[in-house]
């Protein structure tokens, strides 16, 4: 488990096949072309409890696919001090390791004919084992998934391999192979100093180095319990399958270690800046601060409208995207979030099942050429300040509200995502899509402005910048002088040039003692 981003790399896209080729092979039934399929059960959603475990079943009788999600309210927030990475490593050894009956090689052998993968996705308070399989193969796939959770082998070779992979991820890939992800992880550490959310979910170099196989076994025994668990099944599964699948987990302990208490995140004085120094063509920038609300809070929904207006992920709707990229060509993309969002930059829709009890506001500026990095940062602050001080424009409110009313439907297109959102609804006590559908028609601009005033601010926040011009950047930040944009393109409209003059001197609450430079090679060490 390396956090949503690295785990959710697209899985095999192999294709081909000739149904007539081998009689020993069952041809898959036609995917939902409209009328096919044994169609057990009724469409809809049911939530319940089996032996203390919460369950979510979302039948889609027409679907040839079945999605399984086994969720645990366990994550890196449970890592003991000095063993950072233990939760993730434990789930890795489970989900990418052997079982009592089979070595890992035998697990892979058994999975192969099913053309399905067991994926483990984790975050600070979530670990989900999930996979989607053709209904022809659901029984065999369910056996393998259940085995990995109920009877992990915890073999030395699995532990050694997965711990080394985690160490390599933190010390090689994160430090040296993706500046955007490095910036986001650096920001997260800054948002939560001394807090269970602080370190990267995959762990730190020091923490991973200290973990033993015995630690993994003990962590498993103490945390993978029914009270922290939700079993989800969706799609075209056979009658009785979902209930039977959930019942298999009754052998897990009824209760485990309590979830850690979360302190209130510490507020910084002014802006806290970390410059991660490394070779880079352009500067990846992330800024943000903790919020006091989640989906469970009514204010989350008007704040979602403000977020979408400011920077809907991977669309051309947001102010940040249009003003910084569209008008000025500063970079490739600029987005805003009111929930944690670390996943592949090219992916569009937020992954389900990464719930948090505490969330944060974040702006992500994709890499900007060094000469314009501080201008871009000031631009992001400028447009956010406009939103806070002037409120959302009436037209922007109406178009964003209408957009979200329809767009939210796209978040649950396939059986796995539908199941994931249904599980999230159980966790938060509110179904994100249903809440938006219910609230948006009644929402007013005043609701959004009030939520923005209450929850967004620019007095204290954190900024992480990945740059190879760290000393220059630090000096510029401390001096606080205007940082005019440098255009190497012609024909910038006069109105933009006028606005540039405001942005270049946008005030940043930065003082010398709050700007740090850390070489990438030292990040996530402890």
């Amino acid at each position, binding site marked *: 488990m390396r956090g949503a*981003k690295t785990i959710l*790399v697209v*899985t095999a*896209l*192999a*294709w*081909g*096949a*000739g149904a007539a*080729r*081998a009689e020993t092979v069952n041809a*898959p039934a*036609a995917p*939902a072309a*409209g009328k096919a399929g044994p169609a057990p059960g009724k469409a809809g959603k049911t939530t319940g409890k089996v032996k203390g475990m919460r369950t979510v079943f979302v039948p889609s009788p*027409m679907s040839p696919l079945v999605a399984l999600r086994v969720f645990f309210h366990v994550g890196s927030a449970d890592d003991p001090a000095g063993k950072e990475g233990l939760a993730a490593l434990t789930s890795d050894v489970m989900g990418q390791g052997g079982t009592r009956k089979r070595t890992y*090689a035998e697990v892979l052998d058994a*999975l*192969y*004919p*099913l*053309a*399905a993968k067991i994926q483990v996705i984790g975050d600070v308070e979530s670990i989900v084992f999930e996979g*989607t399989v*053709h209904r022809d193969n659901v029984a065999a796939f369910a056996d393998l998934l259940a085995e990995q959770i109920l009877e992990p082998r915890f073999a030395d*070779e699995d532990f050694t*391999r997965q711990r080394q*992979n985690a160490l*390599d991820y933190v010390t090689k*890939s994160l430090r040296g*192979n*993706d500046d*955007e*992800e490095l910036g986001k992880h650096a920001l997260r550490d800054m948002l939560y100093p001394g807090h269970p959310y602080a370190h990267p979910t995959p762990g730190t170099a020091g923490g991973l180095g200290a973990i033993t196989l015995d630690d993994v076994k003990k962590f498993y025994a103490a945390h993978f319990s029914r009270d922290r668990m939700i079993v989800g099944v969706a799609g075209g599964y056979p009658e009785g399958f979902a209930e039977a699948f959930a019942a298999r987990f009754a052998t897990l302990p009824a209760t485990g270690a309590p979830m850690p208490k979360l302190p209130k995140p510490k507020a910084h004085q002014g802006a806290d800046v970390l410059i991660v120094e490394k070779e880079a063509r*352009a500067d990846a920038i992330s800024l943000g601060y903790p919020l006091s609300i989640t989906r469970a809070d009514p204010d989350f929904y008007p704040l979602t409208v403000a977020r979408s207006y400011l920077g809907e992920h*991977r669309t*051309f*709707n947001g102010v940040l995207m249009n003003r910084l*990229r*569209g008008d000025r*060509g*500063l*970079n*490739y*993309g600029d987005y805003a979030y009111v929930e944690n969002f670390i996943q*592949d930059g*090219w992916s*569009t829709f937020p992954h389900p099942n990464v719930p948090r009890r505490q969330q944060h506001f974040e702006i992500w500026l994709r*890499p900007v*050429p060094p000469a314009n990095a501080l201008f871009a940062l000031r631009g992001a602050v400028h447009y956010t300040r406009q939103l806070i001080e002037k409120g959302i424009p009436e037209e922007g409110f109406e178009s*964003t509200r*209408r*957009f979200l009313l*329809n767009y939210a*439907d796209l978040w649950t297109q*396939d059986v796995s995502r539908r199941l994931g959102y249904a599980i999230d609804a159980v966790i938060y006590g509110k179904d994100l899509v249903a809440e938006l559908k219910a609230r948006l028609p009644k929402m007013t601009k005043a609701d959004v402005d009030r939520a923005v005033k209450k929850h967004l601010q620019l007095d204290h926040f954190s900024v992480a910048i*990945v740059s190879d011009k760290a000393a220059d950047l630090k000096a510029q930040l401390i001096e606080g002088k205007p940082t005019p944009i440098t255009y190497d*393109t*012609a024909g910038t409209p006069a109105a933009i040039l006028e606005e540039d003059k405001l942005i270049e001197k946008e005030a940043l609450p930065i003082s010398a003692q709050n700007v740090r430079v850390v070489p*990438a090679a030292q990040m996530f060490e402890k």
Partner: protein
Amino acid sequence: MRPFLNVLSPGAALACLLALPAGARAATPAAPATAGAAAKPAPASAPAKTPSVPSQETTMKKSGEAFPFPVDEKVFPNGLRAYVVHYDSPGLVAYYSVVRTGSRNEVEPGKSGFAHFFEHMMFRGTDKYSQEAYNDVLKQMGADSNAYTSEDLTVYHILAGKTALPRIVEIEADRFQHLKYSEPDFEKEARAVLGEYNKGASNPLQKMFEALYDNAFVSHTYKHTTIGFLKDIEAMPQQFAYSRQFFDRYYRPDNVTLLVVGDVDTAEAWKLIEDAYGGWKVGPPRPVVPPEPAQAKEKTAALGWKGATLPQLLVGYHTPGFSTTNVDLPALDVLAELVFAERAPLYRKLVITEQKVESISGSNDAHVDPNLFTILARVKKADDLPYVEKTVSAELARVAHDGVDEKTLAEVLSHVKYAFAAQLATADKTANVAAQFVALTGRLDAINAYFSLYDKVTTADVKRVAAKYFQATNRTTVTLQADR
């Protein structure tokens, strides 16, 4: 042969780096390739066929095949081909405009990356719908809309409620015929593309794939990746005039195919398309893509990396272009599974038993012209790079010598069948799969035609292709490790 971007194992933290977001999924590190071992030059691209085509309409309603959905097809008088795919997605429709032009068509020197850049420009407006107005229309629909470019295609896609279809057809037909942007907008967008390059530059794979194709190809345009050479990207702001020529050349009805997938009424779709695209004219002949000569000797490149990274090995072997008649292609797909699947002996040895490799993958991605079978391994220690390289070659040689048994072949075929079915999980995903085949051949029935080739793959074929293509003289090897 996989019609998509290369797919890397979850262990490769930054696998899909080049899959471009927002404006594009350009810069696919996927393979280009040449006629190499095929020993004959790659077929040149056909010049544009511009004569009008009589209107034809056919209905194919087949089920139980690899692509099992009812399909309606129509070719309009101006050569525009459109497909309606009936998919059970109540209330939803995916609308794909597939331009059969990608970085493969960047034949002029200094223009690498232009197909992808132009894809960005397609969002810059027309007289009727400015950029803002176009975005507003999509926003009102609550649509998911984007585009991407690869070596062989540029795809524009919209997913929205079915009631939005008339408006979607209107705005898409408008920009495909009447795109109009200012020079300042053009220059600003060129810098967004540079931003996209910069974004990928922190991942070693971008550098490795650039080196692989640059070395493996001599004359074919697969020599450059879809994002293009940096020097060409930096010069893009000066290419305004060329951009109009590019639009005039490639954004023509006989070079575009429409896919309407989901909850769609065919008669309504045909009427909307006829009305909106009927006035679109065919254009001038399009340039021929230069063929690639056979590779005569092994090529290698050793790259350094400033900063932390796992050492990596990337190998490409030239393989044939896409075809629905050449059984070598599905045989190579089978070989990829046999040698590089996670259950394969090679994975067991290197990843599970010896633990010298974090991840390894191999695939033969589908392309219009001959391209590469690519192999990528993330190795734990630089000193092991030669060992891993040698072990991979030895395993390919073993298959060439020993072949494969019938049972294993049947298991592989079952696997690919179920894996393909899983790709058709939504209307949008189905449209995306269809777009790849349309780009390769112009026709949607290429899917089932290609799949029927699997019926013909024998154990002897697998053994034969292993011997035929995986020779040292047909190989380009790129290694990368952190600077010491």
